[in-house]
C-alpha cells in the first residue's frame, strides 16, 4: 500500500516548505499546523486500512523484502502513528500562543516536523538498521530543539541528554553489527524467520541483553533513566510535551517489537530482569515524584514510573498483559502531553513551575483549572477516567498471567501516583496563592489544545470498550508472528 509512506513524507514536505517559506511567525505557524493535521489525516487513513485489511507492507523502490527497506504497519504501529499525529497537532497548535522569537527564527517549526517524521518512521519501518536511522533522525532533531536556548540549565540538560543518547546509539549499532554477523539480514520479518534456526543460547542472551540496554535507556527504565528527569523539564512546554509524549514511547515500542518478534524464546532470566527493572522503575519513579516540589519535575518522574507499568506487562508476553500495555501507552501519550502543556500555562501565568509560586489557580482561572483536572486525575487513575481503565487492563493481564506480586506492585504504585497527583493538584490549584498573582492570561491556543486533549481522554474513557478490543487484536497480532512474517516476505512489490 503506497499510502504507507505518507506519515513520513508529509512531515518531510512540511519541513521543506517551512524552510522555504517567509521566516515570519504567522505563516510558519499556519504551515506547521496544516502539516500536522495532514499527518494526522494520513495516519488515520493508514490505520483504517490496517484495521480492515490486516498488516500493510510497502517495499520501497520495488525492492522486495529482505533486500530493500520495507515499511510495515501492523495494528500497533498504525495506532501509534495516529498518536504521533495527535501529539504533533497539539504541539504545533500551541505555537499560536507564542514561541520565543529567537527559537522561531532558528528553525523551531521545521525541527518539530523532522522530529515527527523520525518518530513516525521508527514506528513504520520493518528493518532494524532503518530503525536505527530513524532513531538518529529523531534524536538529532530533539538535540537541536533542546539546545536552541542559551540559559545555563538548558545547555547543561542538553549536554547530558546528547551524551547518554550517543552512548546508547553506539550500543545499538554494536548490537546490529553482531546480529548481522550472526544472521546476514536485518529485515525484521526475515530475522524472525531465520533466528530460531540459528540462534544459540550464548548469542541469544548477549544480543537480547544489548537490545534491552539500548531500549531501556531510550524508554527510561531503572537504572538507566537518570538522564530523563535531568533534562525534560528545561525546554519550553510544547517541546517537553512532544518529548514526553513520543520519545520514550519509541523506546517502549522498540522493546515490544524486538521482544515479541525475535527474543520470544530468550532465556527466562532475561524476562525476569526486564520485570525487575520495570518494578524498580515504578517504585523509584513515584517515590522520587513524591519528593519533588516542581510541577514539571513531578511530571518527569511520573513519566518514568509509568513507563514501568507498560514494560512490566510486556515482560509477561501474554495477550491480555500486552493489550493492557498498549492501552496504557495510548492513554499515557495523550495525558502526559496534555500535562506538559498545562505546565506551559503555569509558566505563562506565574513564570515558574515551582509549587511554592503556584496556588490559587482554582479561584483565579476556573476554566483552566477545570480543564487541567481531567489529565491530572486521569494520570492519578481516578475512576472512571482512562488512567483507571488502563491500570485495570494491566491488572487483569498480570493476574491472569499469575504474576500476582506485579499486580500488587501496580496497585501500590497506583496509590503513590494518586498521592503524587492529588498533592500536586492541591498545591498548584487549590491552596491559596502565597504571594503570587497571574502575570498573563492562559492563552486561547493553550486552552483550546488542552481542552481538545482532555476531551480525547474523556472519549477514550467512554469508548474504552472498542479501544480495548483494538489493543487486544493488536496484541494477538504481535504474538502471532507468522502473520507478520508472511505479510512481509510473501507480498510482492
Amino acid at each position, binding site marked *: 500500500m503506497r499510502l504507507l509512506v505518507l506519515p513520513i513524507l508529509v512531515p518531510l514536505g512540511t519541513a521543506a516548505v517551512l524552510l522555504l517559506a517567509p521566516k515570519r511567525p504567522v505563516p510558519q505557524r499556519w504551515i506547521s499546523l496544516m502539516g500536522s493535521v495532514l499527518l494526522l489525516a494520513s495516519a488515520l487513513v493508514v490505520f483504517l486500512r490496517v484495521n480492515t485489511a490486516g498488516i500493510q507492507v510497502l517495499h520501497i523502490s520495488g525492492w522486495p523484502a529482505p533486500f530493500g527497506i520495507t515499511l510495515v504497519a501492523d495494528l500497533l504501529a498504525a495506532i501509534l502513528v495516529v498518536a504521533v499525529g495527535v501529539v504533533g497537532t497539539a504541539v504545533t497548535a500551541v505555537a499560536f500562543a507564542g514561541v520565543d522569537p529567537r527559537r522561531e527564527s532558528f528553525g523551531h517549526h521545521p525541527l518539530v516536523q523532522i522530529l515527527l517524521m523520525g518518530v513516525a518512521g521508527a514506528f513504520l519501518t520493518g528493518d532494524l*538498521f532503518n530503525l536505527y*536511522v530513524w532513531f*538518529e533522525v529523531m534524536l*538529532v532533531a530533539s*538535540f*537541536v530543539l533542546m*539546545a536552541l536556548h*542559551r*540559559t*545555563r540549565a538548558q*545547555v*547543561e*540538560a*542538553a*549536554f*547530558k541528554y*546528547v*551524551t547518554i543518547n*550517543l*552512548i546508547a*546509539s*553506539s550500543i545499538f*549499532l*554494536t548490537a*546490529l*553489527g*553482531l546480529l*548481522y*554477523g*550472526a544472521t*546476514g539480514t*536485518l529485515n525484521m520479518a526475515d530475522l524472525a524467520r531465520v533466528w530460531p534456526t540459528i540462534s544459540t543460547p550464548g548469542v541469544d542472551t548477549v544480543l537480547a541483553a544489548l537490545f534491552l540496554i539500548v531500549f531501556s535507556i531510550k524508554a527510561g527504565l531503572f537504572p538507566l533513566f537518570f538522564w530523563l528527569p*535531568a533534562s525534560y523539564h528545561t525546554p519550553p512546554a510544547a517541546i517537553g510535551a512532544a518529548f514526553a509524549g513520543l520519545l520514550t514511547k519509541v523506546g517502549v515500542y522498540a522493546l515490544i517489537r524486538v521482544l515479541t518478534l525475535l527474543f520470544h524464546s530468550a532465556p527466562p532470566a532475561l524476562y525476569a530482569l526486564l520485570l525487575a527493572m520495570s518494578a524498580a522503575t515504578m517504585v523509584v519513579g513515584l517515590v522520587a515524584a513524591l519528593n519533588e516540589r516542581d510541577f514539571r519535575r513531578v511530571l518527569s518522574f511520573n513519566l518514568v514510573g509509568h513507563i514501568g507499568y507498560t514494560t512490566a506487562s510486556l515482560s509477561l508476553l501474554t495477550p491480555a498483559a500486552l493489550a493492557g500495555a498498549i492501552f496504557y501507552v495510548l492513554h499515557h501519550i495523550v495525558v502526559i502531553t496534555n500535562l506538559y502543556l498545562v505546565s506551559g500555562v503555569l509558566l505563562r501565568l506565574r513564570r515558574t513551575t515551582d509549587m511554592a509560586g503556584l496556588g490559587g489557580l482554582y479561584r483565579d482561572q476556573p476554566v483552566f483549572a477545570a480543564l487541567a483536572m481531567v489529565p491530572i486525575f486521569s494520570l492519578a487513575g481516578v475512576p472512571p477516567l482512562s488512567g483507571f481503565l488502563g491500570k485495570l487492563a494491566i491488572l487483569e493481564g498480570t493476574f491472569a498471567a499469575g504474576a500476582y506480586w506485579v499486580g500488587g506492585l501496580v496497585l501500590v504504585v497506583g496509590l503513590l501516583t494518586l498521592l503524587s497527583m492529588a498533592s500536586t493538584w492541591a498545591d498548584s490549584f487549590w491552596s491559596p496563592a502565597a504571594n503570587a498573582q497571574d502575570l498573563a492570561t492562559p492563552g486561547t491556543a493553550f486552552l483550546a489544545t488542552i481542552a481538545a486533549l482532555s476531551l480525547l481522554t474523556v472519549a477514550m474513557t467512554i469508548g474504552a470498550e472498542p479501544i480495548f478490543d483494538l489493543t487486544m487484536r493488536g496484541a494477538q497480532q504481535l504474538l502471532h508472528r507468522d502473520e507478520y512474517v508472511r505479510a512481509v516476505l510473501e507480498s510482492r512489490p
Partner: protein
Amino acid sequence: MEVVLAVASGVLYAAGIYLMLRRRLAQLIIGLGLLSNGTNLLIFTAGGLTRARPPVVPDGATTLVEPYADPVPQALVLTAIVIGFGLLAFSLVLAHRVHATVGTDDVDDVGRE
C-alpha cells in the same frame, strides 16, 4: 585478519570508554568518537571479511561467483560514519557552548545545582 580487526575494535572501545570516564569535556567527545569508530570496525568485521573479491558480476555471467565480499556491512558502516560524523560535529559545538555558558570544561561542574 579478523583477529587484528577484532583487537583493534576492542582497543577503540576500551580507549573510548576510558576517555568518557575522564572529567574533561574534550576527552568525553574524543571518547565518543572512538566508540563510534570501534563500532564501525566491529560491524565491518562481524559481516565477514573477503579480500579482493568485489561483488561485481563478471562479464558473460548472470550471477555472482562465491566467495565475494558482502556489500551490506559496507553500506551499513558508510551510513553509520555519516551519522556519527554529524553527531560528533554537533556535540563539539554543544561542548563549546557549554564551556562558554558554564565557564569550565570539568564535567563534574556541569549540572551542579
